[in-house]
């Protein structure tokens, strides 16, 4: 599946990769708002060309810096033309020593003998690779090894020929001996017997909570990792045309991710150079606590423009953040053309309206839509798609087969299959999703007892904050739409059912003199006549701009309609049900509100050309009532004429 709308992001990755390896490290590039799909795409571009490691830092359990380094070393160690096979013997020695829980920490001589015996017993380089792989086992690769396409035969031969020769040329003893010796000096001029450092390493690892043991252990392992990488790259580091090796870190905003990246940046700030390009993804911003000088946020399509110079050799910040833009309609259309050429061209429009550019959501929905044998005559195509079961997962995974809606929900909540579904949080979010703004949602949650101060967590507040767009008339994000569907699916008479929640929210809006909010929730409750009556009353009274702004906010109200008939018909039915004369001003405005309300719902049917034609006609007719600025309504009419063509 091709990833759309990420060209600039890939360009940024290339910019950090092409920073000279023997110079200051480039900033850590953090993509906000996107996750696996982007890094998987980048990994696909790197695979077989540049050494890279793709690791998910959102793993459960208690992995730490050592496990992350093992995973990085293991994945970076795949053969690659021009780079050969990178080996990490120093890191492997460290792990071997750390894993020995029987080391006698009371008898130094005995400990020395034990370490020497241990290293002597693990002489094979193959064993070193196995050691690292075992250490990395708790951290899943972003791309499982079984899915990675192996190098072509010729490329693999070229890439591994020297590695194998080196393996023959270097006896195992020689390799491990040199790695062991490194622990004596660790690249500095001060030397001590390596075995002494290794004994301390074991001590630090077995008592990480004691003093600065964990920090010392991690620093030493980072140094070993860097030394291995530098030694493995050799003179390639000085060739300007050879890009840096790449580390792709998913879920950098987890506790583990923050720790690892903070350590890396700290070491870089301390003068430690590493020949890596680090690219991370985070669901939400996590660097707000850092000084502004240490970070920079890029605008859409803004390049990094990294350049060498300055007396301190560095001009760029330690972190660069890039909020990933959503897919545009054009991106979605091109994606459909590329990946789903047989799909009804109107379905992607529905998908885009629902997913709001979220690449994974778009991809999931389009793939599922491609499997639908036929579409209903009326609407609710997306409902059909969301209700479909996803393809059965491979037998050797823990993945559970669920509906597209559930999969999407998990994805948007950032929960893997291994994580239990946060039912309680989701129920709270579902109730709160009915609110028109985030503030109202929080008020609702706390005021209604749904959310107690004790139960309030940073994660929930982060999720809540993300459910409402900044612009009041902007469409809701896909997670909120899913939550609203869950709300609509609750029993009609439930205390936190659709009606109860919207009525409560309407009351609160009325109490706050929030007329727009009142109308919004009234419309959600199906009170079309009342809402249309307001707009009829204010047509020609309020300035066109205000009238339209309110109208646009109100018609974003959620629906719990089934959409049994085509949208134009449904709009007529809803309008007729209010009893308004279709040819009267009230009738037209009622029809207009109904049509706009349906048009704002991605679950409304795909046959929307007539719907938008009707909106166009009604806008033109209503425009005559606005003496101050008819052009605004005429412009709206034109917009809907264009949309009608899109939906035709």
């Amino acid at each position: 599946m091709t990833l759309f709308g990420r060209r600039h992001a890939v360009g940024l990755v290339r910019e950090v990769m092409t920073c000279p390896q023997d110079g200051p490290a480039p900033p850590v590039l953090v993509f906000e708002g996107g996750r696996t799909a982007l890094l998987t795409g980048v990994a696909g571009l790197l695979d077989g060309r540049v050494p890279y490691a793709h690791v998910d830092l959102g793993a459960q359990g208690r992995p730490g810096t050592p496990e992350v380094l093992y995973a990085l070393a293991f994945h970076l160690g795949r053969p690659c033309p021009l780079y050969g096979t990178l080996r990490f013997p120093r890191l492997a020695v460290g792990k071997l020593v750390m894993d020995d829980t029987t080391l006698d920490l009371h008898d130094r001589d005995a400990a020395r003998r034990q370490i020497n015996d241990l290293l002597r017993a693990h002489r094979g380089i193959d064993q070193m690779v196995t050691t690292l792989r075992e250490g990395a086992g708790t951290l899943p690769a972003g791309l499982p090894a079984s899915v990675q396409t192996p190098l072509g035969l010729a490329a693999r031969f070229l890439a591994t020929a020297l590695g194998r020769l080196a393996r023959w040329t270097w006896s195992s003893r020689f390799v491990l001996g040199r790695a062991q010796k490194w622990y004596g000096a660790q690249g500095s001029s001060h030397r001590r017997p390596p075995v002494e450092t290794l004994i301390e390493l074991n001590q630090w690892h077995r008592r990480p909570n004691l003093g600065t043991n964990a920090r010392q252990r991690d620093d030493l392992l980072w140094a070993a990792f860097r030394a291995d990488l530098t030694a493995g790259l050799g003179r390639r580091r000085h060739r300007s045309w050879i890009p840096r090796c790449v580390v792709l870190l998913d879920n950098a905003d987890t506790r583990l991710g923050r720790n690892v990246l903070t350590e890396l940046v700290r070491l870089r700030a301390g003068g430690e150079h590493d020949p890596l390009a680090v690219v991370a993804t985070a669901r939400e911003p996590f660097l707000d606590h850092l000084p502004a000088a240490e970070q920079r946020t890029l605008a859409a399509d803004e390049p990094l423009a990294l350049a060498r110079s300055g007396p301190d050799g560095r001009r760029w910040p330690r972190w660069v953040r890039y909020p990933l833009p959503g897919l545009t309609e054009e991106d979605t259309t091109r994606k459909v053309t590329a990946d789903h050429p047989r799909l009804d061209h109107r379905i992607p429009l529905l998908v885009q309206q629902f997913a709001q550019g979220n690449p994974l959501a778009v991809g999931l929905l389009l793939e599922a839509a491609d499997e639908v044998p036929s579409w209903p005559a009326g609407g609710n195509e997306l409902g059909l798609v969301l209700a479909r079961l996803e393809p059965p997962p491979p037998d050797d995974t823990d993945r559970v087969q669920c509906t597209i809606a559930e999969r999407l929900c998990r994805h948007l909540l950032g929960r893997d299959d291994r994580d239990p579904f946060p039912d309680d949080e989701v129920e709270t979010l579902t109730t709160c999703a009915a609110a028109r703004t985030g503030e109202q949602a929080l008020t609702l949650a706390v005021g209604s007892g749904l959310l107690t101060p004790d139960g309030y967590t940073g994660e929930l507040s982060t999720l809540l904050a993300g459910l409402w767009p900044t612009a009041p008339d902007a469409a809701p994000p896909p997670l909120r739409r899913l939550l609203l569907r869950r709300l609509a699916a609750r029993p009609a008479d439930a205390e936190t059912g659709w009606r109860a929640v919207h009525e409560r929210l309407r009351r609160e809006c009325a109490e706050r003199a929030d007329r727009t909010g009142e109308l919004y929730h009234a419309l959600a409750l199906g009170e079309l006549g009342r809402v249309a009556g307001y707009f009829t009353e204010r047509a020609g009274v309020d300035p066109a701009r205000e009238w339209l702004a309110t109208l646009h906010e109100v018609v974003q109200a959620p629906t719990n309609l089934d959409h049994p008939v085509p949208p134009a018909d449904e709009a007529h039915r809803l309008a007729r049900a209010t009893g308004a004369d279709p040819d009267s001003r009230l009738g037209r405005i009622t029809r207009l509100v109904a049509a706009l309300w349906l048009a704002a719902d991605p679950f409304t049917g795909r046959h929307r050309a007539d719907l938008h034609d009707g909106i166009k006609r009604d806008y033109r007719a209503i425009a005559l009532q606005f003496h101050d600025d008819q052009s605004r309504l005429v412009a709206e009419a034109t917009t809907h004429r264009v949309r009608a063509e899109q939906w035709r």
Partner: protein
Amino acid sequence: MAVNSRNGTSPVADVPPDHLAPRVPRLRTVLRRSAVVLSVVVLVAAGAAVVHRVAVSCGPVRSGLTRVDGECVGVLTDVGSHPFSDDLRSVQDAIDRENAWVDAQYRADPGGNRYVRVALFSPMTATAHSFMTADQVRHTVQGAYVAQRRANHTPDFDDPRPLVQLVLANPGSRQAQWPRVVRALERMTDDRHPLVAVIGMGTSITATRDAARYLSASATDLPMIAGVATTDEFRDITGFVRTSPSNTDYVRALADYLAGHRELRTGMLVYDDSEPDLYVRDLRSAYERHLRRYLTVPAKSYFGAADPENRTQLFATIQDSVCNAPRPDLILYAGRALDLDDFVRSLALRGCRDPISILVGATGLSPLEELVPTLVEGRITIVNAAAGHPSWFTADSHPPGSVPDGLPPFLAAFRAEKIGEPGALADGYGPTHHDAMATAVMAIRAVAPGLPRDEVPRAGNVRGQLMNLNNSSTVPGAGGTLTFTTDRKADPIGKWVPITVIPPATDAPTRRPYVTTG
């Protein structure tokens, strides 16, 4: 879900699949591609070379032999690995067994049983255009083998150490591949069991001369002991000796015969005018030098076996000339034995019937029993000065008349080996190459006493002993007790050159044969 770009498609729209790949500098790309191309070319060339090697090899790939123009040429050290012909299979197997025995002796006592190698450089294949017949090729190898056996198992050639292996070096039926063969021989002089002498050298043609001159000038100092190369021109080649009479020796023997046959006074020289026949040219020159007073009739020429493209079956002009006045009673024949049959038959058809004698100097004529009726009818007598007499090689264990001292033990050894068919010795190739091998062994063993026990002679040492094979150190050859001196250079002293008159062919010589002197 496509996760990589190795199949040519990019996982990210509007991003080329190689967007993140290293941008290899053009020169490096060119160099890399050139290296790849070069590697492929080298591999293909190596593969082709291997295929070619397999295709042109004779026997095992590492036999040392190469197929050239349908013949297997080169140096065969593993003598049993590739029989040059069915004719040679038996004697090659015998040599292989002897060589294996020598090596086994060495392995059992490396310090006491060091050994050296001697190469028999001679055509191993015979064709319609070759200078040696298949029988002569076979007899050559047989003679050398018998000498090897005597050298390794008897005290006939002095101290039985060092032992000797025999290897076969084939320059081709017309000796055209001599360059590659002599180079291979040169490389063998530095082996642990070094090559220390070359025997045989083939017939008297330019190829033999060129090979001999090459080895003479070679830094390896390989000595050469020829068996049938009789051309006088070879006398002055340093490091070269022969166990056969020279052409001059043949002519002197014939002169000695004519001295006892004063009725023969009018002679006509008939010579082979084909190139590159050194023997014929040289023999003609010897006739002209030593029998000039007999050449009273203008000479006649023909194109013989040496030039297969210009071969003539009939000697029409010569046939007519012998009946013109002055009629010759002698024909001094300077041609190859291969053409003699045709000449005799043509001469027998001459119009006149005066007796005529054909004088021939040759190592050994092929058996001429079939020709005797023609000779009788045509009143033709062949007077052949040869390296041996037919009576020496009958079934009798004691040849009649005087024979060289070394002949009876040679005959006994030859018969004991059961390597030759009846009449194998008649053409003289066996005995003369036996003597060549014996000479080489004597020279080798003349060096050995002066060396430490675990050392072996080198080629240069052996060459230095050739001219010391005299006085108390003579070669007990089948064709005479041979000595070599600087005065005679390549030509042996003590070589018997008996005269055979045909008919009759089997009578013992009636007079004491000519023996070469210093």
